[in-house]
């Protein structure tokens, strides 16, 4: 029986040379592959480096950093939900200077690409963060987290209002060096995601990260009170995947030229492929990291296999493909034999 046991190697097994070109880009940021971590789910890479080589990913997206050290919200901060979780961490972090001194250099030394997520309580704080980062080398991209739901004042969720979102994006874009792309991370909790996206792009965003969590509540039926000390929290995980995917779809349909970093409940290479087909140029892995710390490298390998199986020469060829005309029945580019000659049941849909 011991033959069935395997220690998962810290370095993923070397795959046979694949024919698929996995390189992609997010604005001017060229990535060796399209799998990144999601902000808040990978720290600044050190902890996950125990499980895989962080430089093997497209990039590490760091936990949103603020100007000053921040304690976050009270506990309990987490509740498991069906195929997901609710969190109300509240942007706990060491503050920008500690991040620049301790965390960013570590990523750079490791040869990992760093996407720095920044969060501010005001346009002024965003501006200060961006001004300070202007002087810093080793940043591949900046993700402006304008959509964290775990702030006491809902008025701080800039991504819920096109004008507030644009104000932040414009301030950050002006402050950051032009060769560093600025992406705005959007909330799915809006009436018209396309309107917010357009506003961010008009204000200078080089691309969009979609999406952040959805606001939710879980109530403990024993105490008959909300589980989270912060009452509300951000819902993440596979439960939100169709919603996030819909946001990517709508924005890509409206602005096909705008690069999208897609995220929301990705667990497998096929999940990642859905986001790419909907219009994302790259994807971030979030909650699944908590479930499977090696998932980013696993998903990357699965995605590469999935693209190869479908005959793609490069991942770039798959971006937004789902918006094209449906291929006639029987002319799927891949081995989709299980869809033929039998009724399609819900189980046949990718989960």
């Amino acid at each position, binding site marked *: 029986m011991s033959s069935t046991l395997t220690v998962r190697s810290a370095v993923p097994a070397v795959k046979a040379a694949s024919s698929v070109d996995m390189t992609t880009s997010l604005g001017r940021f060229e990535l060796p592959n399209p799998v990144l971590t999601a902000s808040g789910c990978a720290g600044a890479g050190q*902890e996950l480096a125990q499980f895989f080589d962080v430089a093997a990913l497209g990039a590490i997206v760091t936990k949103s950093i603020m100007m000053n050290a*921040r304690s976050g919200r009270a506990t309990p901060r987490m509740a498991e939900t069906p195929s997901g979780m609710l969190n109300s961490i509240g942007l706990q972090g060491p503050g920008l200077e500690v991040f620049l001194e301790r965390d960013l250099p570590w990523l750079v030394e490791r040869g990992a690409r760093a996407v720095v997520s920044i969060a501010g309580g005001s346009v002024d704080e965003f501006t200060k963060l961006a001004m300070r980062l202007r002087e810093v080398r080793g940043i591949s991209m900046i993700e402006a987290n304008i959509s964290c739901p775990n702030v006491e004042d809902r008025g701080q969720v800039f991504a819920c209002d096109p004008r507030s979102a644009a104000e932040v994006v414009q301030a950050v874009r002006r402050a950051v060096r032009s060769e560093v792309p600025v992406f705005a991370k959007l909330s799915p909790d809006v009436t018209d995601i396309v309107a917010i996206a357009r506003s961010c792009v008009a204000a200078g965003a080089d691309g969009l990260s979609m999406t952040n969590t959805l606001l939710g509540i879980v109530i403990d039926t024993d105490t008959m009170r909300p589980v989270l000390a912060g009452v509300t929290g951000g819902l993440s995980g596979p439960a939100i995947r169709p919603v996030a995917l819909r946001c990517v779809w709508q924005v890509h349909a409206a602005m096909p030229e705008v690069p999208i970093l897609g995220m929301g409940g990705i667990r497998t290479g096929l999940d990642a492929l859905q986001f790419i087909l909907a219009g994302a140029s790259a994807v971030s892995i979030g909650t699944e990291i*908590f479930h499977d710390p090696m998932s980013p490298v696993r998903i990357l390998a699965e995605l590469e296999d999935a693209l190869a199986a479908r005959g793609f020469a490069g991942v770039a060829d798959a971006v937004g493909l789902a918006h094209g005309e449906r291929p006639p029945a029987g002319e799927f580019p891949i081995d989709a034999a299980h869809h033929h000659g039998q009724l399609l049941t819900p189980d046949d849909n990718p989960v």
Partner: protein
Amino acid sequence: MPVQVNGEVLSLRRVGAYHAMTVVAPGVAEIAKPGQFVTVAVGGPDTSMMMRRPFSIYQIRERGVYGGTVEFIFSIEGRGTAWLAARQAHEPIDIVGPLGKAFSLPREPATCVLVGGGYGTAPLFPLADALRARGCRIDFVMGASKEERLFGALDAKRISATLSVTTEDGSVGHRGRVSDVLPDVLSSSKADVVYACGPMGMLRAVSRIADAAGIACQIAVEELMACGVGVCMTCVLPVVGDDGVTRMVRSCVDGPVFHGDRVRFDDIGTIPADALGAPQPIVVKPQPRSSLKPTGQQASAEVTR
């Protein structure tokens, strides 16, 4: 360094109110130390339960017939642990470990009082083995709500100079809590150090008693975790650092073992106002009476920066 292993269930047995699972986990057992924990994925490959379940390591066998094994104790508390309790031998299990900081051991032979609540005694057994290998005396104190929720009383009796048992219903031992008997145990054993694991209320009481007696105390906390590896910031609690500053630290990587006198038990579940990065109250400057706004329009006393 922790590893993620496709392990295999070697055995699963009932122990009183609890379940004990032994997993063949090569790479975990060889480096595991007392006080560390493992996390396991529950529900199978397509599970709807995204959170791994953390368990203190009970027994460590570096070399078994099938390779290194780790054993952990659990109680059925929900769907995830119910799934675990329904496993069969030879089924695969995704396990990550060893995680967290271990108990520190005294350099010289010392008298050690081990205090466990419920199956919180589990990590105290490998600790006792390590302490005894260093020539330490063990005095064991264990408590639970009732007899079947005690864990390991017979083993504890075998390895300790004295064993004190408490149950809240009086079904066995002293009727009451471990904190009722601990002061006497500390003085009669002339304890040098206290180690404790169990519910937070018990850890608070034990830390207070050890502190009052001037005895060093290490505790292993049980906090709600999401990732177990230090990236999610779910399992934080207020702990005073060497510099005197309170930080919200992660029990998964900065713990689960802490010095009892450093944990701000009364502030768990809050952000103490003096913690690093705590929301600062707005300082309202005195204003001339004439410029005071109607009270309804004044800013809330506390806002997040």
